C-alpha cells in the first residue's frame, strides 16, 4: 500500500505517435511520495531557516474549498505541519427542522442537504421512512428509484470531476462535465419538474411516474454519455502533467481508511471493497450486474480512477434498469399512507376528507427506529429516524459521509506541500451542505 515505486504509462505531447496513430505512451516511474524519479528530486538538504512556523488561513470564502470550509494550516516553509479544519459555516439546522415536519414534508429538505445528489437523497429518505412504516414498495417504483439514484450519482460525480479539474488547473473538462450534467437536468426536469431540487419521492412511491417517451431520452443519454467520458478519459488519465500532479499524495492505507470511517470512493480507493449496494443491499441492487472499482494505492489518483470507473458502472446499471422496467403502479395501494388522486380529491367528498386528513395530520408510523444507509456518491449515507408514534419523527439524524471523510483531512495533508492540500481537499468530494447540515 503506497510502498515502493510505481509505474504508470503516460502520454506527452512531445512523445509523438505510435504505429497506429495514437499518442505514444512512456512509462512514468514514481516513488512513494509520488514524485517522478527521472526528474531530479528537490534537494533534501534544504537550508534550515530559523523562524516561526507560519499560520495560513484558507476560507471560508475561497474558490478551492468547494463552499465555506475553513482550513487553518501551520506551514514550515511550504510544507504543511498541521491542519485544522473548521466547519459549520453552513449549519442550517436540518435535523431540528425535521422534528417539526411530517415524513413527506421532510423530503424537500433532503434535496438541499447534499444538493449535488438531491434525488438520491430523496430515495434514501423514502427508503428509511418506509422501513419505519414497515411497507414494501412496488417493483416499478424500485426500478424507477434505481434509475433516479444512478442518474443522481452521475450528476454528482460530474460536478466533482469538473471542480476537481479546475482545482488542479484544467478548465475544459469542467465545460464538458457540465454539458452532460445539463442533459441529466433535462431528464430530471421532464420527470419531476425541477432541475436541482427534485423532491421526487414520497413515502410508499414516487411523486410522479415518468412521462411517456422519457425512456427514449434516457436511452439516448446512455448511448451518448460514454463518448464524453472517453473524451475526458483520453484527456486526463494518461496525461503526464495530471498524473505527476496527483499521484502519491493524500495516501490512506486500508486500515487507516476503515479506522477513520471513510466510505464510498475514498474507502474503495484505499483497497477496501465495501459498497453498501453490495454488502447491505437495498432496491434489489444485488440483482444488477456491476463491478465495484477498488484502488490499490489510496492516493488522489486512485480516487480519480475509482470515480471515473463508477461513472461507467452507473451507465451499466442504468442500461439494465431501462431494460427491466416493469409496468404497473408506482405507489403502493395503502390509503393510510398514499394520498388519493388529485382528480378524485377535488370531486368526491370522501376523497377530499381523506386528502385533508392525510395532509393535515399525516401518516403515523408505529413506535420504533430505523437506520437505513445507501451508497451515495460521497459514501455511506444513512438516515436514522426515531418514531414515537406521532406523525413527526422524534429524531431525524443524517449520517453525512463527507463530514466523516473530511475529518480525515489533517491525516491526509500533513507533511505534504501547500499546493497538494487543494488537490487532496478536492479529491474528498466534499459538499458543505451535507457536512454542516
Amino acid at each position: 500500500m503506497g510502498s515502493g515505486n510505481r509505474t504508470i504509462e503516460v502520454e506527452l505531447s512531445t512523445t509523438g505517435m505510435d504505429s497506429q496513430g495514437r499518442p505514444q505512451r512512456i512509462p512514468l516511474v514514481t516513488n512513494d511520495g509520488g514524485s517522478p524519479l527521472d526528474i531530479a528530486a528537490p534537494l533534501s538538504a534544504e537550508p534550515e531557516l530559523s523562524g516561526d512556523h507560519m499560520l495560513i488561513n484558507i476560507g471560508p470564502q475561497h474558490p478551492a474549498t468547494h463552499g465555506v470550509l475553513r482550513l487553518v494550516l501551520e506551514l514550515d516553509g511550504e510544507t504543511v505541519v498541521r491542519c485544522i479544519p473548521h466547519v459549520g459555516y453552513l449549519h442550517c439546522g436540518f435535523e431540528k427542522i425535521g422534528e417539526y415536519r411530517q415524513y413527506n414534508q421532510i423530503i424537500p429538505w433532503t434535496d438541499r442537504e447534499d444538493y449535488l445528489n438531491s434525488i438520491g437523497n430523496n430515495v434514501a429518505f423514502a427508503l428509511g421512512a418506509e422501513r419505519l412504516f414497515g411497507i414494501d414498495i412496488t417493483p416499478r417504483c424500485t426500478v424507477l428509484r434505481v434509475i433516479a439514484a444512478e442518474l443522481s450519482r452521475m450528476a454528482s460525480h460530474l460536478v466533482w470531476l469538473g471542480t476537481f479539474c479546475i482545482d488542479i488547473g484544467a478548465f475544459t473538462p469542467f465545460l464538458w462535465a457540465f454539458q452532460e450534467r445539463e442533459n441529466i437536468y433535462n431528464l430530471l426536469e421532464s420527470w419531476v419538474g425541477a432541475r436541482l431540487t427534485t423532491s421526487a419521492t414520497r413515502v410508499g412511491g414516487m411523486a410522479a411516474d415518468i412521462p411517456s417517451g422519457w425512456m427514449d431520452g434516457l436511452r439516448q443519454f446512455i448511448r451518448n454519455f460514454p463518448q464524453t467520458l472517453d473524451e475526458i478519459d483520453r484527456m486526463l488519465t494518461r496525461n503526464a502533467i495530471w498524473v505527476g500532479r496527483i499521484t502519491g499524495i493524500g495516501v490512506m492505507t486500508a486500515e487507516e481508511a476503515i479506522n477513520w470511517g471513510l466510505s464510498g470512493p475514498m474507502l474503495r480507493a484505499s483497497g477496501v471493497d465495501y459498497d453498501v449496494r453490495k454488502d447491505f443491499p437495498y432496491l434489489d441492487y444485488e440483482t444488477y450486474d456491476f463491478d465495484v472499482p477498488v484502488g490499490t494505492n489510496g492516493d488522489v489518483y486512485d480516487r480519480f480512477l475509482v470515480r471515473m470507473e463508477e461513472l461507467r458502472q452507473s451507465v451499466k446499471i442504468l442500461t439494465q434498469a431501462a431494460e427491466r422496467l416493469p409496468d404497473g403502479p408506482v405507489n403502493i395501494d395503502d390509503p393510510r399512507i398514499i394520498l388519493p388522486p388529485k382528480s378524485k380529491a377535488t370531486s368526491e367528498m370522501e376523497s377530499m376528507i381523506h386528502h385533508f386528513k392525510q395532509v393535515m395530520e399525516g401518516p403515523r408510523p408505529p413506535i420504533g427506529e430505523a437506520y437505513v444507509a445507501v451508497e451515495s456518491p460521497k459514501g455511506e449515507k444513512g438516515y436514522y429516524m426515531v418514531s414515537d408514534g406521532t406523525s413527526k419523527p422524534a429524531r431525524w439524524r443524517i449520517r453525512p459521509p463527507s463530514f466523516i471523510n473530511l475529518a480525515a483531512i489533517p491525516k491526509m495533508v500533513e507533511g505534504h506541500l501547500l499546493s497538494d492540500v487543494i488537490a487532496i481537499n478536492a479529491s474528498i468530494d466534499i459538499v458543505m451542505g451535507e457536512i454542516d447540515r
Partner: protein
Amino acid sequence: MTDKTQIVTTGRALANALTPVTPRNIAHRGGEPNPSAAAIGEHFLGYVVRSEVIWGETTVYVTRASVFEVMQWLHDDPTQQYDFLSDITAVESRDFEQPIEVVWHLRSLPFRRFLRVKVQLEKNAPLEVSSVWSIWKSADWMERECYDMFGIRFKGHPDLRRILMWEQYKEGFPLRKDFPLRGRFSRAEQLRQALAQNPEAKYSMEELSIADAFEDLPSEMRQRLRKGERTGE
C-alpha cells in the same frame, strides 16, 4: 473504446450464493437478532441492560460504565470485528421524563453485521459517557457534533469543542427538545451576536497543540477550553 487503467481492479460483479439480498417483509418487532448481542451478554455479565430487535435491526442497551470496554471488545475480538463505526448520535424523547440515549451504529465489514449500541443517560446526572475516539478515529468529529448539539460530554475525547456552532454561541444546545426551533434569543439579538464574531480570529499555537497535549494542560485551561472560551487573538 474504454481505456481501462491497470491500476484499478474491479471485483464482485455478480451476486453469488453468499451475497446478501435486499430485506423484504421485515417484522416490526422480533426477527432474528444479531448474534453479537447474545455474545456481549455472555462475555460481560451484567453489562447488557436489555436487547431488542426493531425492524430487523438489533439494539443492545448497555450500562453507562461499560461502554468503552464493550466497544473495545467488539472492535478487537476476532469473532466480532466491528471495525467500522458508522455513526454516533443522541436521541432525546419528546417526553421530558425519558432519559437521553446515546447511539452508536457499528458495522462489521468482514461479517457484514450491523449493530446498534445504546446508553441511557438520566437527565438528573451530568451527561457524560466514555469517548471511543481511541478505538475509532472517526469518532472525533461525530462526538464533537454530539457535544455541540446535545451537550453530552465524552470523557477522553482529546479536543471536545463546538464544531458546527461558533465557540461563543450562548443559546444552548440546539437539538435538545427544550430548545425552541427559532432559538432562545430574538432575531435582532441573534444577528447582533453573530456579527460580533471576529471573522479573522486566529488560533493560537497553544490551541493548535491541544490535540497532542490536552491532558497535560493545566486544569483551569482545560476548564476554559471545555467552556468554549477562545484563548485570545
